[in-house]
């Protein structure tokens, strides 16, 4: 996804920092599906998720200057902005007023029955290969941004177990996606 005839990651970042519209156009065409997919996991309401993805790209535009390639890749940086924006939204008053929290928690707890949020089959397949406990862990930490303490309470496991189990889950995911292990 990162390679293209048009831009290298380096030249893309350079153009983005100049607020070049064409570069943003390229960025949107290449990454909006994936970033929107993440938001959709967190906020399974099309309209709101669309608002959030728009905010995300505006944030990228405004903050691209503070992005440092030495600290990590562009995609990772954008993913973090995306997760934070979506998670912040779920914690805002607007969201709670609409009673949306319930939808999310439902999604977390009844991963068997309620899969409305996880639409894309590839993604569903990957997560479904994980045991329920591990799937919950990924959802709570990665998609919902719960702290270690919160996860420990919700899942009723000791604090230290949260991080070791999270690590094991990521190792499992690597294997499932056939990424190199070392």
């Amino acid at each position: 996804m990162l390679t293209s005839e048009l831009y290298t990651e380096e030249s893309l970042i350079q153009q983005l920092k100049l607020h070049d519209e064409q570069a943003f156009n390229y960025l949107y065409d290449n990454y909006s599906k994936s970033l929107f997919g993440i938001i959709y996991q967190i906020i399974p309401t099309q309209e709101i998720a669309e608002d959030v993805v728009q905010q995300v790209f505006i944030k990228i535009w405004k903050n691209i200057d503070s992005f440092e390639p030495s600290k990590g890749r562009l995609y990772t940086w954008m993913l973090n902005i995306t997760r934070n924006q979506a998670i912040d939204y779920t914690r805002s008053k607007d969201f709670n007023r609409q009673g949306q929290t319930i939808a999310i928690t439902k999604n977390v707890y009844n991963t068997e029955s309620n899969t409305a949020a996880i639409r894309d089959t590839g993604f569903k397949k990957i997560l479904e290969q994980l045991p329920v406990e591990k799937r919950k862990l990924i959802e709570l930490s990665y998609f919902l941004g719960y702290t270690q303490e919160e996860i420990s309470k919700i899942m009723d496991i000791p604090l230290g177990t949260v991080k070791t189990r999270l690590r094991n889950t990521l190792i499992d995911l690597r294997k499932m996606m056939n990424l190199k292990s070392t």
Partner: protein
Amino acid sequence: MDLSCIISSGDLELYFLGLLPKEETEKVDALIILFPEIKAEVDRISETLEAVSSYATVMPGPHVKENLFKQLKELKSTESVSSTEIKEQQKEPAFIEKDTPPGKVVSMKRSGNNSLLAAAIIGLVLSIGAVIYLATQNSRNNQELVLMEQRVNELNTSLNQQEQQNLAYSQLMQIMQDPNYTHINLQQVPGKPEALVKVFWNKQSNEVYLFDVSLPEPPSNKQYQLWAIVDGKPVSAGVFDNAKQRAQKMQDFAKADAFAITLEQRGGSAEPTMEEMYVIGTTS
């Protein structure tokens, strides 16, 4: 130092997810700079989550792109025009006029016979209004000025700190990349808290630098002391309080079989207190 326990602790995963407390985050920041193994592990974590995320693709509606680029165009056009704020400030004197009309109306009614009195009242009201306005405006300006000065000072301080830290980091990087420096990992002594300390020793110039990532904060009446073991005997290499995030220069040594750190009374001791030895590492 055995890095595997840090790697397997799960802390790096929490670090990546932004779930580590601030202090721990800074510690991992330092570890990433120091150890390529740690950096590689953090990269692996990001690669994994990137890969998972790339499976979750859903297309937003076409109107999203349209709206977005409309907004971005607006943003771009306002980026150069930030002078609007100045214009708004200039509007404020209108308050004088806003405040005065009630006074004006009252005095007009009564001034049917005596226009001089009316004029005097209007004049009085206006001047009181003006005095109050100017007084509040003045104190507001003063307050803003004070706040701005504070802010500038804060920014200066944090800039200085940042510069110092950058300097410290670049010095550290230089030492780390210099092939003349031997890196010695000091290992935790059983029964003492887990710690990560490195000694960089230049056998050509005899210079010794210390970089401590995680020794516990010493009590105020104590200091850490670095020892070089030369021909089986400990020789003091100097005391230090905090060598976190920078390489601290210690005494030069032409010869040493090992380095060790003990906790001693402030100012250091002539002989190391063996029970208070925290870390040790041999040079070969």
